[in-house]
């Protein structure tokens, strides 16, 4: 099993989720995060106070998948999250030691296989 961690633009989240759904990837967790990926800084002004916004809002997805699902998952995200500008995000694929499904106590492969 692998854990696919993707960091994408918040405005692209809808398309990413739709693309994952089409790729039949079920079961994921998202967080709203902030980060810096080398994109152009944004200048904002509040009365006399001017600030450079160094961190941009991003969404981080975590998807636990079985091995043969890694490629379709990554492809779905690559296809949907891209705008071509700096700041589109990253995808990390991490090894997973052990997975349990809490409801049934199933382990590993069975635990990341969607209930059908």
């Amino acid at each position, binding site marked *: 099993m692998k854990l696919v961690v993707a960091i994408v*633009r918040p*405005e*692209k989240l*809808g*398309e990413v989720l739709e693309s994952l759904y089409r790729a039949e990837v079920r079961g994921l967790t998202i967080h709203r995060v*902030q980060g*810096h990926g080398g994109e152009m800084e*944004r*200048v*904002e*002004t*509040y009365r006399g*106070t*001017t*600030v*450079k*916004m*160094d*961190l941009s809002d991003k969404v981080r997805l975590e998807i636990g998948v079985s091995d043969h699902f890694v490629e379709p998952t990554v492809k779905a995200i690559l296809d949907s999250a891209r*705008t071509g*500008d700096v700041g589109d995000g990253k995808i990390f694929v991490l090894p997973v030691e052990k997975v349990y499904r809490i409801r049934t106590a199933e382990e590993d492969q069975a635990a990341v296989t969607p209930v059908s």
Partner: protein
Amino acid sequence: MNNADIAWMLVATALVLLMTPALALFYGGLVRSKNSLNTMMMSFASLGFVGVGWALVGYSLAFGPGNLWLGDLSRAMLRGVGLEPSGSIPHLLFAAFQCTFAIITVALISGAIVERMRFGPYLAFLTLWGIFVYAPLAHWVWGGGWLAKLGILDFAGGTVVHVNAAAAALVAALVLGPRKDFARQAILPHNVPFTLLGAGLLWFGWFGFNAGSALGANASAALAFCNTMLAPAATLVVWILLDLSRTGRATAVGAATGIVVGLVAVTPAAGYVSPLSAILLGAVAAFPSYFALLWRARTRLDDSLDVVAAHGLGGTVGALLTGVLAERAWNGGAAAGALFGEPRRVLVQAAGVVAAIAFSAGGTFAILKLVGLFAPLRAGVREEGLGLDVTQHGEEGYTRGEGAILVLPDPAPAGVGLPAPLSAESGSA
């Protein structure tokens, strides 16, 4: 002049002015958080640009003597608008009261074009629209124009304000086209409590709008005031019952919308119909708007905040029913509707609505195309994605401050503006 009338009109003017910030809250709550400031600024900008435009030329084009179609420039720059009486109040106060109507009317249009219009072209559009579309239509109905001569009944602006703004909103939504996410992604209101607060403040301000349109502290104002209480109450009841019967749940956004629809519908009727008729009118007005909202969301028309369904249909129903329900016993003998002996009234009301739609639609189209010659009206796809708050205003509605680095002025004048060094002594005085 009458001091009671002056006192009431001073208060009424302030109440109507408050409706524009209220509208900003109403609209601001309905958009996504990344566009909240831009949406609210679309209303707030009207306070400035339309307000000044009104004083410079708008008032004169609307209420200058002129002809049947347009006022003239004899009152431009408020020339001759002083403290002499206009009715029983100072002329200047009348001009200020009417100014607040121009401001809210233009702000209403913005609901159809939120989340995608660039702010600069919007400012040009709203300034020109306030002068070249609102002022002539106000002249037709209230300034001694041809609709006034025809005998149209528009107590506080059902046609001039609401039908007018809705026709402009429809054209603006079509000219700008739908948002890039429209009908592709769920676009949800980011702050429904704002919207409820906005609806409440609109209702509060609307007492000035309708009862102030009596232009004095008199019986007509009292009737308009009570009708402004009762009609939206009836619309709210019907709206909640429709929600309950259709889905089993009464929605808050629906309640806020129902209040506005009822207020819009009673606007032309406020000082002409009996309180019971106002309840009937408010109840009837709920139906077309309620079902138009449901239908519109399934079309490709991105009238984002449903200006047409709420103000266009509400205003039209109100205008027509004014021609049905007006009663001489209640309006001091001014006019009777179809139910009370003058069936012709309804036709005049319908003519007014049709004329307002045609003129407003044409004028809006021309102004948008004109502004579009000088600058693109739409924000780019990337700007739309990032949100118009950051791209148009360089601010966010909801900042967290994390990752914000202070940009210090450079070079800093010696010893000025630098924070005092922190030390044990500081604060010991």
